């Protein structure tokens, strides 16, 4: 057994001390935790370090290689930024949950076997839900409940999958998995839920916008990225991921455009960015994988930055509804600036981080000959610029003046956003340093003429479309009543469809299960009749009966033995 422990444990165990501290001491302590974890990380060599033997199973709790290191770096950076961002909070529950959540995510990244992964997987689910519940509204409670059910469901699938996998292969090691075995398939589904594959994605836009202003920043950083890491580790080069990722990159665009809640817009755009990464993993070439993990790295930073700016708005104004905001740049100039940096990064402007990472995936798709995938991704890129790059800053900070005046965001929030923004620009301007961290050696050059020109063309075209739509007054949120009507219609349509489906389903169900339903209620009544307090089995039997049973048992044994 080697004695190294996962750096995640520093955060998890460290979090337990947070409730004991107050004021400035607590702030310093919380800032020190990710720094300490990072310092500890630097002392670790690469390799399988945390071998633990439990009940005959050899578990590898700490696998350090370039892939896990990269994710750990960005997770620690995100943790530090989020701690800074949340410094003004007095809510102990959120602080503790945030640190445990981050620690679990880091633990999961370093898990070298499926059992360890499962434990941290559940830790992520349980710790993160408190960040949603901490909003302390009825709505967030319900959304958190739904979130928890789905996340724990993913954990259960993972557990079932790993058990079957263990049975078949006799190994718990978390290496490359295959889809052709039932175990691998279940694990794939578990990862898919957390990575918000289409159809399995509903929890993401449902839960994230309901987290606390600070909590959502964390949520956007960890849960889905752990899944991306897990996919990259276990299912790199799995073909089915390419269509899944392509659909994932495209469909949230439409939702994002019609959505009014700006944090939900970001949630959809998060889902869409995940699509790019999933495509990269599905392609499975060195360039594509590099692109996927690099994009995950960049996405944590710029999506975090966007969520932070919206969080600041929510914190100061109390709403992030596009229709109620506008003109905030007068009150919150710094936040506006950082938001624009984030928007530029996510839209992949040259010199911003999104450009140097996303283009790797696109290039890989082209190199592998997936022309249609490339086209859809191109469309998705334009869409991203449209809804995240323009819509978010435009409706929050510019557009028509809502007349709202508030203070600039608190200093700690600004500092956190500044760090993120600096990293976004830094990666965008000096990609060489960043590429050195990637799992595979790369000679990729993002700043070639055709890349830059193509991207700028795309961006300008998208901006043009937005401008024309705004000018001609077709763009939905400006026509507020139309938008609400549309939304209302959409909801009513959805509901009536659901209602119809439900009625049809119910009729079919009734027809199908009249007998079955009777059976179930009969079974419950049966169980109650025999096991209930007055039931035959639960009543204290008379001594005579017990003695008779003893005799029956003896007779039964003898009969069976002599048969």
């Amino acid at each position: 057994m080697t004695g190294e422990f996962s750096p995640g444990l520093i955060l998890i165990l460290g979090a337990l001390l947070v409730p004991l501290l107050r004021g400035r001491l607590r702030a310093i302590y919380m800032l020190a935790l990710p720094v300490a974890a990072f310092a500890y990380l630097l002392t670790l060599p690469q390799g399988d370090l945390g071998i633990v033997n439990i009940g005959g199973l050899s578990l590898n709790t700490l696998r350090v290689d370039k892939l896990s290191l990269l994710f750990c770096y960005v997770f620690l950076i995100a943790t530090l930024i989020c701690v800074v961002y949340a410094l003004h909070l007095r809510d102990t529950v959120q602080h503790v949950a945030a640190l445990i959540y981050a620690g679990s995510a880091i633990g999961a990244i370093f898990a070298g076997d499926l059992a360890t992964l499962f434990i941290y997987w559940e830790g992520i689910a349980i710790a993160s839900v408190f960040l949603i519940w901490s909003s302390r509204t009825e709505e967030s409670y319900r959304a958190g409940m739904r979130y928890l059910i789905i996340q724990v469901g993913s954990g259960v699938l993972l557990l079932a999958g790993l058990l079957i996998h263990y049975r078949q292969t006799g190994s718990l090691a978390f290496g490359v998995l295959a889809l052709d075995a039932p175990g691998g398939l279940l694990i794939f589904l578990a990862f898919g839920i957390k990575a918000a594959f289409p159809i399995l994605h509903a929890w993401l836009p449902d839960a994230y916008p309901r987290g606390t202003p600070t909590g959502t920043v964390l949520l956007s950083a960890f849960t889905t990225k752990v899944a991306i890491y897990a996919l990259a580790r276990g299912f790199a080069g799995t073909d089915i991921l390419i269509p899944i990722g392509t659909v994932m990159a495209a469909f949230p665009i439409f939702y994002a455009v019609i959505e009014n809640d700006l944090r939900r817009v970001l949630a959809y755009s998060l889902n869409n960015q995940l699509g790019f990464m999933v495509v990269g993993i599905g392609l499975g070439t060195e360039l594509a994988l590099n692109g996927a993990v690099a994009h995950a790295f960049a996405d944590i930073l710029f999506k975090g930055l966007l969520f932070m700016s919206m969080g600041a708005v929510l914190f100061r104004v109390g709403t992030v509804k596009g229709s109620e905001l506008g003109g905030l740049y007068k009150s919150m100039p710094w936040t506006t600036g950082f938001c624009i940096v984030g928007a530029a990064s996510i839209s992949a402007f040259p010199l911003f981080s999104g450009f140097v990472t996303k283009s790797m995936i696109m290039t890989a798709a082209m190199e592998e000959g997936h022309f249609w995938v490339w086209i859809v991704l191109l469309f998705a890129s334009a869409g991203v610029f449209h809804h995240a790059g323009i819509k978010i800053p435009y409706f929050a900070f510019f557009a028509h003046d809502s007349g709202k005046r508030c203070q600039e965001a608190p200093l700690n929030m600004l500092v956190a956003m500044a760090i993120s923004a600096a990293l976004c620009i830094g990666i965008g301007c000096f990609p060489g340093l960043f590429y050195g961290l990637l799992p595979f050696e790369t000679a990729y050059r993002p700043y070639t003429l055709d890349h830059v020109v193509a991207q700028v063309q795309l961006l300008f075209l998208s901006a043009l479309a937005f401008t024309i739509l705004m000018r001609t007054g077709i763009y939905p949120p400006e026509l507020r009543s139309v938008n609400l009507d549309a939304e209302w219609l959409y909801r009513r349509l959805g509901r009536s469809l659901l209602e119809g489906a439900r009625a049809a389903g119910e009729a079919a169900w009734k027809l199908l299960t009249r007998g079955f339903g009777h059976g179930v209620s009969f079974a419950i009544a049966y169980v109650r009749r025999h096991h209930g307090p007055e039931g035959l089995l639960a009543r204290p039997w008379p001594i005579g009966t017990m003695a008779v049973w003893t005799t029956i048992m003896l007779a039964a044994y003898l009969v069976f033995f002599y048969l």
Partner: protein
Amino acid sequence: MEALWSHLPALQIVIPLLGGVLVALVRRGSLAFALTLVVSWVLPVVSGLLLYQVLSTGPISYALGGWPPPWGIEYRVDVLNAFVLMLVSAIGAIIMPFARRSVALEVGERRSAWFYCMYLMCLAGLLGVAITGDAFNAFVFLEISSLSTYVLIALGRDRRALVAAFRYLIMGTIGATFYVIGVGLLYVLTGSLNMVDIAQRLAVAPPEQARAMVAALAFLTVGISLKLALFPLHSWLPGAYAYAPSWATVFLSATATKVAIYLLVRFLFSIFGGALDLRSLPVAEILIALSVAAMFIASFIAVYQSNLKRMLAYSSLAQIGYMMLGIGIANQAALTGGLVHLVNHAIMKAALFMAMGSLFYRVGTVRLTEIAGIGRKMPLTMGAFVVAGLGIIGTPGTAGFISKWYLAVGALDRGWWVLVFLLVASSLISVLYIGRVIEMAWFRPAADGLAEAKDPPLSMLLPLLLLAAATIYFGIDTRLTAGIAGEAAQFLLGGLR
């Protein structure tokens, strides 16, 4: 010192036996408690040394009174019963501090010396059953423990305790009778009472004796099944656990049935395993069928109980089903699971019953409907209840998960998927009955009568928290539990024909 070292097996029994007599002579409540505490704390040292000795140098044979086996009585300690000795004495030591206030309240100062005397007798009996290598001597110890158990139960405050003790008395006696008949048959067959000797002689017995041998097996299995309350011979247990003094329930639930299971394992594997081809007899099938029945029926009954001690008693019956399931499946993983569940269940159930004892100490009731909102008044007690309850359910990260994991792996090794499904399904029922309590204790506004309630004094709280912590600890580090259980399982399976 060297002399003492070689007499450790005898000390294991002599200390509690003499302690019991001494306590009976002292008669003063607090002094009696102090004596009992000392005895209880010395015993795990003895059994710890025995376990260490066995693990490092192999089985110990101790000839009582210098009469060599097979004529004299032999105390024989191997890894299996060293494990059981350690379990019983460690549980006794850990829960002992809890006894003082609980027993003083429920039994009364005046009678508590008698209570402790009976406890030590019972402890001596249980340890004796575990340590002895003589089939008839085991019967004697079984009776010592049973008789003292009847008294322990009858000392309960509720008048129904008398009926429960009486029912147990009758059933226990029937069980003991069956056991003696079984041993008698073996004696006729082999002319020996020493277990090792019986096993050797049975192995070379002429084939026409197989019929009598099988009859002996049937009598012994049924007799011991009664003692360990395997469905459908369980009916004495819920009443006995529900109405006995809280602390007696803690002790009995954690140890008494475990020792009976040990005895069954000993007979099945070490004695009959070498003589008969057990796989040609439907022993496994019957045991598995009864275990599954116990897992489901007892769990369902527990869901409907309103007296929480009674509910936990039914849950014990279901958990006995898990242990017996491991013995029925009888391969390395499953047997490890069954044996490790002896320990894990002892820890968790002792914690749960101590939580009940604390409730009764502070609130005077263990009825579900009367403890609404108690979680906020007694957070540590009910917190420990939640932890141990999660263990009973088998949540990953708790000791209960380890047992079920091994059982599931064992069932899968045999290719019995259905059993794995049943294992999980029955765990889901335990979510219901544990969840009911958690919901009532934590998610309801506090009932009026509970305004004064608070966590019990430290002497009661510490053992409770210790065992709750152990539930988590043994869910993570299983070297001590599953490791030794695995060795014991290997040892047992190695003796099979």
